[in-house]
């Protein structure tokens, strides 16, 4: 790590020498100072992610006193949840109910649920939990929790002010946020991303792709009556047969006057009959390669990462449905350097650290595409998530690589998950707008800016902006 830190500091000094605004300098310095490393902090899938047992003094620190219940305490009965099959059966009914709601003039109520729980190596596996909210007038105490300290009771030794324990700010276990109780047993509905894509397309009326471009022949065949065969077959080709009979009779010299032919006098050989016959035809299909790029620099800690990854899961699911499963995905993480990671798990769980150079990720994609000659066989999609910070403040490096990318992609979607109120816009936003690419190439390049308070509906709306083929006002 020492070497990398040195590099970062050198880069930082060089940037400073070129001139930075005080705000930028402060921001970059903060990323530098944050330190840390990009390890995946979470236990591998399948590991026990339950909170530590009673020996952990903080195990119940966040428990409300109303969470203690008799079945739990006395009977060891965990709250039960409907099984996977039951949920799967009901989701169609629920969505149908939701459609009716809209017809009746009430807003929809079913959410597809927060859904990230990819295990290592299990691509395309996403957890869908159909959820809803029962709205009431209730007090919002969150404003106290965010600023003031959360409070609870304790017992035992310790002077006032003494620290008695700590736990990480980001809970371990890779639980998607909002998946209900979590931890308390098998309650998720495991569905595949394809189903989710279907839900997104149907339920939220995400657009279907109009032109997918058929590119690669696959080992998939259709059967058509395209081949001809003499002697036997499924369907007599009358025109071709008549032509053959004529040829035969001409050769035999049975036709003296072509202007006066008597068909009843034809001699017909068995080989004269021409049939159409079923034959195997190679099919050409469209398929897609999606690159997911994520900024995992130090500034991405918390909400921005969550938003970006949640949106990427949804996009992935939607593409999977659009391409009928023919989607391959690649995952790239970047800070000042970019690196490709093997699976979504690593992509999702890698911890943030380091500085930011957006260009590095795009450059890596360009390299991969060229090296593997992906353009020939794939429709290529690139989705990039960032908080908008970039040490390359003017986009001197980013804009050229993006332009290069636009020569071969079907779509580039950039999501900026903004932190704070940031009225003047982030670096990435500014240089993209300045470059004019968003207007000139809006068929290929889209930008979506998310606020901190983004909810699921907004995320899905964002996807619409990123992928729709309709022109969008910039």
């Amino acid at each position, binding site marked *: 790590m020492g070497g990398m830190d040195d590099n970062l500091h050198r880069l930082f000094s060089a940037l400073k020498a070129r001139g930075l605004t005080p705000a930028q300098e402060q921001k970059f310095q903060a990323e530098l100072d944050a330190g840390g490393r990009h390890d995946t902090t979470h236990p591998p899938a399948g590991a026990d992610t339950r909170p530590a047992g009673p020996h952990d003094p903080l195990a119940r620190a966040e428990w409300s006193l109303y969470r203690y219940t008799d079945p739990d305490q006395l009977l060891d009965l965990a709250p039960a949840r409907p099984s996977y099959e039951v949920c799967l059966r009901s989701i169609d009914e629920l969505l149908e109910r939701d459609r009716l709601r809209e017809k009746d003039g009430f807003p929809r109520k079913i959410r597809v649920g927060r859904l990230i729980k990819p295990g290592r190596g299990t691509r395309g596996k996403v957890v869908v939990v159909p959820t809803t909210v029962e709205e009431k007038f209730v007090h919002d105490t969150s404003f106290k929790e965010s600023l003031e300290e959360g409070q609870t*009771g304790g017992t035992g030794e310790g002077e006032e002010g003494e620290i008695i324990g700590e736990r990480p700010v980001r809970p371990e276990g890779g639980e998607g946020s909002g998946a209900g109780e979590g931890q308390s047993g098998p309650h998720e509905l495991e569905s595949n991303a394809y189903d989710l894509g279907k839900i997104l397309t149907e339920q939220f009326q995400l657009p279907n792709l109009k032109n997918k471009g058929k590119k690669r022949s696959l080992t998939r065949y259709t059967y058509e009556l395209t081949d001809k065969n003499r002697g036997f077959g499924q369907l007599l080709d009358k025109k071709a047969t008549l032509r053959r009979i004529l040829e035969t009779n001409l050769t035999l010299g049975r036709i003296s006057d072509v202007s006066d032919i008597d068909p009843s006098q034809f001699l017909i050989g068995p080989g004269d009959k021409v049939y159409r016959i079923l034959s195997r035809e190679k099919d050409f299909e469209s398929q897609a390669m999606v690159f997911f790029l994520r900024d995992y620099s130090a500034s991405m800690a918390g909400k921005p990462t969550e938003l970006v990854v949640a949106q990427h899961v949804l996009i992935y699911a939607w593409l999977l449905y659009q391409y009928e499963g023919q989607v391959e995905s690649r995952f790239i993480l970047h800070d000042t350097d970019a690196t490709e990671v093997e699976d979504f798990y690593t992509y999702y769980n890698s911890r943030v650290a380091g500085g930011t150079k957006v260009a590095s990720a795009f450059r890596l994609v360009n390299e991969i595409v060229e090296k593997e000659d992906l353009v020939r066989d794939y429709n290529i999609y690139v989705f990039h998530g960032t908080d908008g910070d970039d040490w390359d403040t003017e986009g001197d490096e980013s804009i050229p690589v993006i332009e290069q990318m636009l020569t071969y992609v079907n779509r580039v979607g950039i999501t900026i998950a903004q932190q704070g109120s940031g009225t003047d816009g982030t670096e990435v936003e500014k240089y993209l707008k300045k470059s004019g690419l968003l207007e000139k190439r809006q068929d290929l390049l889209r930008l979506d800016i998310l606020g901190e308070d983004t909810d699921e509906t907004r995320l899905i709306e964002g996807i619409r902006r990123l992928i729709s083929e309709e022109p969008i006002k910039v």
Partner: protein
Amino acid sequence: MELIDQHTKSIMEGCKRRAQDAGLRFQDETLEYIVTNRDLLELAPKVMIPTLYDYWVHDVEVLREKGKYELYPHNPYETVINTRPAISFYNDNNPDWLNVMIFYHVLAHVDFFQNNLFFKHTWEYDFAGQALSDKRIIARLRAEKGRWVDYIIEFARGVDNLVGYHSELSQMSRPFDTGLSSQVNYYFDVFLQTEKRVKINTYVQEIERYNRCLASDHRQGEKTFFAVVDKKYPEFKAVYGKYLAERRVPPRDLMQFLLKNSPFLNKGQNKWMQAVIEVVRNTSLFFQPQIRTKIMNEGWASYWHETLFLQDDRIKGHEVDFARVNSAVTAMPRVGMNPYAMGMRLFYYIEELGNKGKHSIAFRQIRDAHQRKTFDLGTGDGRQFIFKLRENLNDFLFINAFLDQDFMNRHNLFVVGRRMNQERMVWEYYVKSRKVEDYRKMLLDSLYHPPHIVIDPQKSETNGTLYLDHRFEEKPLVKDYIANTMLGIEFLWGSPVQLETSEIESIEPVKKDGDSNGAEPGSDELDIKWRRVRYTMKDKKLTRENL
């Protein structure tokens, strides 16, 4: 679901006898069922009432990321159900000694349900039976009206945390007759105060005059009194007559108000909706006392399962097993708030004080620490005293009255603070305070407390708009939920609905004088600026304005 076997039932009956000998009072019949996980699937969303009405949301996972327990009454997950006979649920593989412990716990809950005055409105009927007939009504309506029944359930549930539980209770506990005529009541309670808005001294003078009239002539006094009233307010007779004609009991909550006054719900073709709303309201009312007595109820049950188990002659040889299970249930966590542990210790503590006669003025006047410690009148009526508490108190009163510094010291209690360590990205938990004032405040703040929202009749008058006033308690509402909740109320009311509430305008740590760095992060003091706002739901569109 099946009943427990005869052997286990005989253990239960033995527990009942011993519990009754110890002074617990409950109806003798109870029902005990074995439940499987599959049964729990169906029971849990129906608040453990097998006969509760069907509703599609029961089949979906409900997100409660915001104010999970604020959303009550729809998530209690309990073993004992307050019905007649009381129902309780068990898993089927418990050893006998463990069943003995659990049965005592359950019986103490039943005793609490059937004696604590905050449950008074649930004593008169069997909720499970009521629920079954309600379920049938709703099923029948659903057959006729289809999904519109579910909309009504949804909208009614949207306001079912605002039920007037306390006014319902107060109505029940009121003496039936004050001996005053309705005319007198109207004159003093409504006419003078609301119609005439007289000054206090005028009001008091009138009361004195009334008393004088009555004193001079017990029979005709009232007539004499009103003769003067008629002269002073010639319109009184007419106003009173009108009042009598359209007399309505003031509604106890928003739901009841809607039932009585909503033009929409009172249209002939919409009358059926009233039945649905009534069901939702009654269900909510039924569950209200449970969450308001969590600490007491669990403390009471834990106190008795421990006390009775240790005296039980049937469990010899299982003391160690019991100790392990019992400590898991009733140990005070190093960090956290366990209602079983807290409630049980408070009951023991209060009993001990009672035995020494410390619930007395004589004791309270002693300031000397040593004298306080050694004070003992040997009155021995602690047990009797805690029985009184289980009858008359709820969590708020219990904590507020009996949690004191001596108790804190004895059990080494403290308030735990949590602050973020930015550098290491961890939450640090630390001992924040050992003062009883802080601890009590922390505990009281964590008790269930739905927003107090009342109907403002004055502001409601114009063009049929319903005006709701959220009383300011330094707590804003969850904004995301406002729109849909108000949409539901607008539907049930049939006209626009307005809600006045308070929101945070700005929030920052208080800067302390002379401290150039401002407040340290994690400082308690927050300078919150509040702003009054008004939401209007009209034609399913929500607008918001600052006041």
